[in-house]
């Protein structure tokens, strides 16, 4: 919603090339939510602390509330809406649902993104690795243990999914 000079920003969003005429300092979060309607990306704090707005930027996790949209020009952004179409997501969905890793759900898509970022780096993390891997995301409901279990379960049951599609 920044006024002033706009420019055309082109990037890959959930697998498709998109272009948008926008002020380059507009928050990526707002572009995703309001220009593309991707409301699975949540705003929890607006200053990069809570991770509810987590997305993948070239496969790495970022807080989209502190990323100016200009910097994603020519890069690849994946939100929960894109990620949920993958086989890896299905595994995580099952394991998180079965581990009771969800309560209010507002932080949950961010944790799924954090789990993907972690598992793509380290398909067989131990508990400590998982706790570190999700430490940029805040949850006020669960005490984290069920989320850790959910990610552990996904890795235990399908780590090959993250191994086989080795880092691009």
């Amino acid at each position, binding site marked *: 919603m920044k006024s002033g000079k706009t420019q055309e920003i082109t990037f890959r969003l959930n697998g498709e090339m998109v272009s948008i005429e926008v002020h380059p300092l507009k928050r990526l979060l707002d572009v995703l939510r309001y220009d593309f309607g991707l409301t699975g990306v949540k705003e929890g704090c607006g200053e990069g602390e809570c991770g509810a707005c987590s997305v993948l930027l070239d496969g790495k996790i970022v807080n989209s509330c502190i990323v100016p949209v200009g910097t994603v020009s020519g890069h690849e952004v994946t939100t929960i809406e894109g990620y949920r179409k993958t086989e890896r997501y299905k595994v995580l969905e099952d394991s998180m649902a079965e581990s009771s890793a969800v*309560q209010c759900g507002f932080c949950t898509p961010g944790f799924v993104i954090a789990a993907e970022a972690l598992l793509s780096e380290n398909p067989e993390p131990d*508990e400590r690795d998982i706790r570190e891997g999700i430490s940029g995301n805040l949850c006020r409901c669960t005490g984290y243990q069920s989320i850790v279990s959910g990610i552990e379960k996904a890795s235990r049951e399908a780590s090959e999914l993250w191994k086989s599609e080795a880092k691009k």
Partner: protein
Amino acid sequence: MEKEQEKNISTPVERVDARRKISGSERYIDDMDFDGLIHARLYTSDVSRARIKSVRLPELPEGYVIVSWKDVPGKNRVKMINDDWPFLAEDEVNYYGEPIFVVAGPEPEKIEEILSKIHVEYQELPPVYTIEDALEASGESDGWLFADYTIRKGDYESVEKAFGREPGKYRVIEGTYSTGLQEHAYLEPQGMVATYRDGKVTIFGSMQCPYYVKGALVQALGLPEDRVQIVQTTTGGGFGGKEDYPSLLAGYVAFAAIKSGKPVKIVLDRREDIRLTTKRHPSLAHVKSILDENNRVVGMDVDIVLDGGAYEGLSSVVLQRSIFVATGAYDIPNVRVRGRAVRTNNVPRGAFRGFGGPQGIFAIEMQMDRIARELGLDPADFKAAHFLGKGDSTVTGGVIRSDVKLDEMLELAKRMSSYEEKRSNRSNRSNRRPFHGRGISVFIHGCGFTGSGERDKIKARVGLRELPDGKVALLVANVEMGQGAQTTLRKIVSDTLDIPISSVVYDNPDTDRVPDSGPTVASRTAMIVGGLVREASLEFKSVLEDRVVGSAESAPGEPLKQPEEPIEVFKQYRQPPEISWDDEKFIGDAYPDYSWGVNVVDVSVDPVTREVTVEGIWGVYDIGVPLDEAIARGQMQGGIAQGIGWASLEVMEEREGRLVQDSLTDYIIPTSMDLPDIEVDFVMNPSPYGPYGAKGAGELPFVGIAPAYAAAVSDALGVPMDSIPITPEKLLNLKFNKGEEPESA
């Protein structure tokens, strides 16, 4: 009351909302579209206490409105206990950040500009910021005390006199305990949308209590009941923070919607949310205990004061919970408790998980810990010698009617945490680097509304309705906010009627569709509302069975009967006759039943940085029978995490009435790295007052964890911890006993 269940209700099922939430397809208020929506922001005071001398408002561009208290169509007071809290300030402001105007219009930038052009001239008055100053002010003028209660059990004064006559026979141990402000920090900030069409206001938003919001708007808008509709949207955490404040936020958007004729939305950003919304009451307690020659506490005098902030809101009821648990899980024969809630020029405090219970329990638990350590006794043994039991009387002279399984729970907690083994290892403190410590807490939480609330104020009503497709609609006003209500209440219907959970329809409540089953607070949803849902389901079942029998009786060859009327059953709460309460004198059963808990916490303290690491957490709970063990476990773990935050990381200070930590950058809540695995177990103890024997669960885990943590730090350092949050900075300033001061690195 209930038959022993044939199926096990506690067996976990997958939460009905899990996959919608994991996939990001669940819609919260900020994710919804409304045609022609405009935005609103609040203009707030930048002084703590003042008379408003004059205001200057800018020219408004077309399509923008400014709402002041004069635009409030009905009563400019939020409907709560005493209706003292204005939606918008009139001629005075009483805290920094108090809303004075609502500015609404299409463009957020333009709203910002209008806000910057509003000028308010104040005549400042001397503010009061602390409990101590408020107590002093209350001696000089009226208006600084919201509530001042005294309750008694036995005859404390006689014990004090006996001690005065024979001081050698008795021992007196005193302590002063304090707890800090706490922010709810639900991940979804508060948000509301109002529409105004054909003389009817409809509110959509994140909330715990649709009928509280409705009541507040009926009063503030001066509209009849059928002109105010409240629809809860999926709520991203509440913890009490969405009990009181949503009524205010709904007012702001409703006033602006009426004035502008457009749908209006406010979604707070995190800093606004922290600055505007209510917090946990800070507390200051003094406890004096008189022990006899057998090391039994025979008398206890408790004085507890809560800082209520600028308006009363729910403070008096929060205070009631604090004083009703003043002697915790213990049977103390002679007790005097005084509780006061004071007014200060700080942001109003409100409901927060535990609702005054945690402050009361912190004081009694730290006091019991202090006594045990002064006497050289193990705190667990000392506490166990004072446990309440079935038939004992509470501080209000109520009766503990159900079995109390504290002994069993304590044994289990000890076993889980290898309590005895580690106790012998800890005897030689000076050789330990880092310092290790262990704390234990035992606690109680009353289930449901305090006092006669359920009977006289709430009068909960639930319904079940047969739908044309054969499914059954569950009609309750209680909300899913993460705690699992949409799953557990459905389970009750599904189990009773023997239909799949997916055949129970339970949409987010809409006051035009559901009866008032009361607010989603006070650990009442499982026990009170769940109990009514069970009753309604049983009646629904018997009507259904009659119908089946009836149709079987019609002779073969006869024409088919007309389709039956859809079954509809409503049930209203009735207080069990044995529960009695005097709301004037606070005598009788403050709660129909109680939940119980035991926590053990292990910590280590770095001798140099004084950083505390939580090494282990164990919890054993009696919530009657869990309606879903996985959901209950999640409640326990989450409540523990929030309580560890309150005890350690969550520093929230006010300087001259302004919050120092007003963002998630400065206000630190626990991350996954701050907590160990939390081991939780349940002791089954079916209550006659809840469905399948269930009792209250949501608040219990918060209630007892902070004192266990503080006691563990005390144990590690050999110094009583009287005040939370316990920060490394605080520990660095502590004086240690000689020989225990760590050598400098």
